[in-house]
Structure formats: C-alpha cells, structure tokens
C-alpha cells in the first residue's frame, strides 16, 4: 500500500461509520461557530467570561435532562442567567469583576454537580463535562444546526458593531450607539455558542474552542477579515484532525480537537512571521511611519 492510499484510507475508513460522520459534522459546525466568535473574545479579552458561561450551564443541562426538555434550553437559561447575575453583582458591590465571575461560575457549576448526584441514573456526568460527540442524536444535531445558524446570522448582521464595541466603546456612545446593548448581544452570542460546542467537547473544554482559534489568528495577521478566515480555517482543520485521530488512536474526541487547536496556536506563537517569538522580523511602530510623520511636520 503506497503512502497516498494510506492517507486516503485514514480518512475513508472511519467515514463508513454513521457515528463518525455525525461526530465530524458536529465538531466542524461547533468549531466554525466558536472560531467566528473567538475573534471578538480575543480582542475584548473575555476568556474568563467564556470559562464562566460554559461552567455555569451545567445545572441547566442537568435540569433539562431531568424534565425531558431540549438540553439547549436549560443551558441557554443558565448561561444567560449567570451572565446577568455577574453583571448585577458587579454593578452593585465593590467586588471586582474577575472575582464576581469566579464566584458565580463556580457556584453554578457546584449546583450542577449537586443536581447530578441527586439524580445519578438519568444523566451521565462525564458526557456533559467532557462531551459525547460520538453519541449525538438527531435531535441534538438539529438543535446544534439551528443555534449555529442563529449565531452566524446575527454575527453576519452585526459584525461591524461588535468590532466597534471591541475597539472603542466611548466612540460608540458618542455617536449614539449604545455600547451596553452591544455588550449584551456579544454575551448572548457567547452563551448560545457555548451551547453549540457543548456536545462536541464538553463543558470543561468549551472555553478552548472560543479562545484558541481567535488567539492563533491574532498572532498571524493584522487584518480583522483575515483573522476571521484564519480562525475558521484553524478550527475546521483541528476538528477534522481531532475526530480522525481520536478514531484511529482510540482517545477522547473533544480532547483531540482541542489539542489540535492548541498545536496550531503553539506553531503560530513560535513561527508567525508577524508576531511569532521566533519568526518576528519587524518591530512596531515601523521606522518608516515615524519618518513619514516627521517629514509632514516639517512642511
């Protein structure tokens, strides 16, 4: 068997199985949605918020299973509820935001653990925590596709406003655009995105999906449009690599996908021509820019 056949088989053999095809679909869709949002998460600096929202959905997921509701519903209620709670406590106490986030998300996560232990037979904790992408049902897939479409649609309409919010809130306010509303929108998108990725990689690793692709792209380009494209590319390649590698090596799928993303980040961190530790060739601001400014000043 030559090398080419080996490579083709590496992909083709697992694809004969329905569960692999489903897993691949979920991993890619979740990866794309997370990657798109991760660009703004990176720029706004919301990695802790991503961590918080993902952990806080646990009680919602458990309650949904208990009452036979779609898991996305409970996750959404608790995800957005926690964000609102963080906002309220932050505004009405002297405790700093990162501490408030730490309190709220761990408390929610603890509530989830207690609920799971109260009804052990109905839910498999490890599936919620670490994902169960090989066992997604048709209903799960439908929910994921609908929510993914909602997030991508809203981002398509409002991406310029989100970038405005990330770049200069005061200017947004000064031209009559409410930055508080944009913040709420971005938090809402984060909550929905977390739910989309939950099945793929589980609660613990969701934050990786909403940070790593954007952070990787941020090291590779200075253009926001390119950052979006690179981020999505990284996520798709990582999803495909992760799913197939986990099949062949018989290891955790969610873990493999996130490891693949982390590998991409490590490569960008080291070798990015623009901002990599080993690849960096130019400094900022460029000497040319300073010279040009001074020559204009002299005129």
């Amino acid at each position, binding site marked *: 068997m030559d090398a080419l056949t080996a490579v083709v088989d590496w992909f083709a053999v697992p694809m004969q199985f329905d569960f692999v095809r489903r897993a691949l679909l979920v991993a890619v869709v979740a990866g794309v949605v997370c990657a798109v949002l991760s660009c703004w998460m990176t720029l706004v600096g919301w990695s802790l918020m991503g961590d918080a929202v993902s952990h806080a959905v646990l009680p919602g997921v458990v309650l949904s299973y208990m009452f036979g509701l779609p898991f996305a519903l409970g996750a959404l209620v608790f995800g957005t509820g926690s964000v609102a709670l963080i906002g309220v406590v932050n505004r009405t106490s002297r405790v700093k935001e990162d501490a408030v986030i730490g309190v709220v998300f761990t408390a929610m996560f603890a509530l989830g653990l207690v609920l799971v232990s109260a009804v052990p037979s109905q839910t498999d904790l490890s599936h919620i925590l670490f994902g169960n992408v090989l066992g997604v049902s048709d209903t799960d897939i439908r929910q994921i596709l609908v929510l993914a479409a909602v997030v991508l649609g809203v981002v398509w309409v409002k991406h310029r406003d989100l970038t*405005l919010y990330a*770049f*200069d809130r005061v200017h947004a306010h*000064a031209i009559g655009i409410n930055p508080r509303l944009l913040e709420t929108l971005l938090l809402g998108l984060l909550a929905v995105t977390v739910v989309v990725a939950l099945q793929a990689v589980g609660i613990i690793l969701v934050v990786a999906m909403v940070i790593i692709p954007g952070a990787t792209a941020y090291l590779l380009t200075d253009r*926001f449009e390119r950052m979006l494209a690179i981020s999505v590319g990284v996520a798709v390649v990582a999803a495909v690599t992760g799913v197939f590698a986990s099949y062949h090596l018989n290891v955790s799928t969610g873990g493999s996908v996130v490891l693949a993303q982390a590998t991409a980040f490590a490569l960008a961190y080291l070798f990015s021509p623009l901002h990599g530790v080993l690849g960096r060739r130019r400094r900022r601001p460029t000497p040319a820019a300073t010279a040009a400014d001074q020559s204009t000043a002299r005129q």
Partner: protein
Amino acid sequence: MTAAAHPAAPAVEVVDATVHYGDVLALDGVSLSVQPGRICGLLGTNGSGKSTLFKTILGLVRADRGRVRLLGLDGATARRKGLVGYVPQAEQVDWDFPVSVRDVVMMGRYGQMGLRRRPRPADREAVEHALERTDLTGLAERRIGALSGGQRKRAFVARALAQGADVLLLDEPFAGVDKGSEATVTALLRRLRDEGRTLLLSTHDLAQVPELCDEAVLLQRRVIARGAPDEVLRPETVMEAFGVHVQGEGERWTH
C-alpha cells in the same frame, strides 16, 4: 458649518455640574460655556476632574446636579445626530487592534449607517475626504498601531471629520505626540476651528495652550479660572490649581 438647532446657543454649555464617585467629590458646581468656532483648553492636574468633566459632557457619567447642552441640544440628541466627535487619549486605545486607519475613520460614519453598517458611496467619500484633510491618504491601509503618535491623533480627528462632528472633544491630544508632529496636529486643529468647529481639549501640557487655545479653563474640581490663556496661566492661578511653587516656571508656561 452644518446648522445646529439653535444657532445662537453655545457649542458646549455645562451649568453647575456636580459629580460624586461614591463619597469622593469629583466635580463641584462646574460651569463652562464655549461659543462655536472656538478652541477651549481644559487645564488641570491628574485628578482635577478633567476626565470626569469630559465624561459628563459625553453623557458617560451622570451628574448629581447640573446640566449639559451641546449646540443648544440635550446631550443624547446631539450624540444621536453625530454632532459630537471624540478623540481618545493615547493610552485608552488598544494599538494592537487589527484595524486599518481607513476602518477607524469609517467608524465615524456608523451612527448614520443602516443596520449592518455597510458603507455606501457617500460614506466612502466622506472617509476619503477626511483622510485627505488629515494628510493620511497614503497611510489608509496601515494598521492603526503602525502609525506614529501624531499620525494616530490625526486618524482619530479624521474619524470625527468623517462623522461630520461640529464639536470635538480631545482628551490629552498632545500626549504621546513627539515635538516634530505637534505643529502638524496644532495646525490641523486650528483649521478645523477656522471652519467653525468647536474644540474642547483637555491637557496638562501647558506649553501648547497659549499658542493653540482661544480660551482656557483651569479646573481643580471646581473652576479656578477661566478666560484668555495668558490670564488663566498667571503663576498665582496655576499655583493654586497645581498646588506647587511655580515662580520662574510660570514664565515658561506663558510663552
């Protein structure tokens, strides 16, 4: 310039603004009035309430007492009409942010665009015109952080121009600008004034004030002095505001 609702009204009018942060009194009955077509320098030390007054004028901080009117309109209306341009302090901007100079200037137009903020030909024209006026056309594709201090300042002024702002608030416009570029920025601001725009700039760099400003206000939680720059910058007055002994140094500040 484009007409305000009340042509005779001051461009910036603050009446008796008092602001507390918790128990701390940040502004104490501050009144301020700047006529259209004037450059007013807002002077004071760190902690003198300059930025609080800016935030109050921008409507980011609610005054416990007092009111703000811009071009005869209440603040919210003036902002919605895009009449207020804001040029941020250098340290408040994320200079690593992946936006080009043209992207930043385009953000000036967002308030007047549709739901998706998709640029129409008129928006592109306004942006190109603003870039031309600030001498940044050749640098439009550069990332904002790749510019020098003076160019960065001009880019944010261009954003206010593209927006069509009649009143510009400039927060420490000379911080982070090297001596060589100061003259370019100063000349640009004067041209905007001559066209009838109103500029309110906060600064602790007193050297620029007599040259650039038509009037000045010295702030130390309350208004300590206001009037022509050389009057406001008299050593005794400055001493009171800055709480330091400035004999001899006052000379430097007034020339």
